[in-house]
């Protein structure tokens, strides 16, 4: 147990030492903008993390860049464009609507539509089947013939 606790402590100590610079702003609005920007922008190296979560050196550099661009009174749009110009659309967790991303933006709606069409189709079909079908005169004769033969 003691060994285990030491291990846990060591893990936490290493994580702590990896913690990076925290940027603070006097202006509260700017702080909020910074927080939302580093959440919206994706780290180009460690691909499934945003700039806020990642400990990689490039994420730290890009956080610094966001901080400095905010200090230069750049708008959110300008900062996002700055990143896109250098790292491509890839850095956006909410990619822009373009011919390349139509399938991303409209795919789910189209799939839902297809689903609705299928459901309607199936329901209609089964509704039709529920109505008992009448036998034709020839079929009735044949049925009687079969029953008689038994």
């Amino acid at each position, binding site marked *: 147990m003691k060994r285990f606790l030491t291990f846990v402590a060591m893990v936490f100590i290493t994580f702590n030492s990896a913690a990076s610079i925290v940027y603070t702003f006097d202006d509260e609005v700017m702080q909020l903008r910074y927080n939302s920007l580093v959440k919206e922008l994706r780290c*180009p*190296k460690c691909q499934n993390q945003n700039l806020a979560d990642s400990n990689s*050196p*490039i994420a730290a*550099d*890009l956080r610094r860049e966001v901080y400095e661009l905010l200090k230069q009174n750049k708008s959110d749009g300008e900062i996002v464009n700055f990143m896109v110009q*250098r*790292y491509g*659309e*890839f850095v956006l967790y909410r990619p822009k609507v373009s011919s390349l991303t139509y399938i991303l933006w409209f795919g789910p709606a189209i799939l839902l539509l297809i689903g609705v069409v299928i459901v309607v189709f199936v329901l209609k079909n089964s509704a039709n089947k529920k109505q008992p079908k009448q036998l034709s005169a020839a079929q009735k004769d044949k049925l009687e013939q079969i029953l008689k033969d038994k």
Partner: protein
Amino acid sequence: MNKIIRFIPLVLFIALGAILYRGLSLNPQEIPSALVDKKLPSFQLPQLLKPEVMLTEKDLKGDIVLLNVWGTWCVYCKYEHPYLVDIAKSGRVSLYGLNYKDIRADAKQWLIDYENPYILSIFDEQGRFGIELGVTAAPETFVIDAKGIIRMKHVGPIDTKVWQDKFLPLIETLEKENQGERS
């Protein structure tokens, strides 16, 4: 009609399978660079070996320029180093280095310990020019044509296979372009 409908799930399954199978062989680390076909961004940074010399984009001279992003902290840079030496010796390209987020003394020592394949190295301590180039880590290599346009970006180390598959075709194209322009 009903018979066709029965096959729809199978067709959808095969289509989905094909898409997912393709996904297995894609490398998620390979992000299309936003800078290809754009001009090399301008910069003003000191030279690695001569801190007093300031370099700009105009100092990267050559018909075909290779700009290799490297650092002594980068394991794969060591792996690709002998290949870079060979490439530099071939004389087909002008190889420049971008020493990225490094310590100057370490980088100098590296070039002494191994061999210096670069015509010169730019010293980008803060990684600012790296951000301009969309660099995510080292090693990365840019191919720049005679007009200063970035034609390709390669992420990861160069070895014989990468050189032959990815670089040589482009270099042959560029050599033809350059010849066409001269004649």
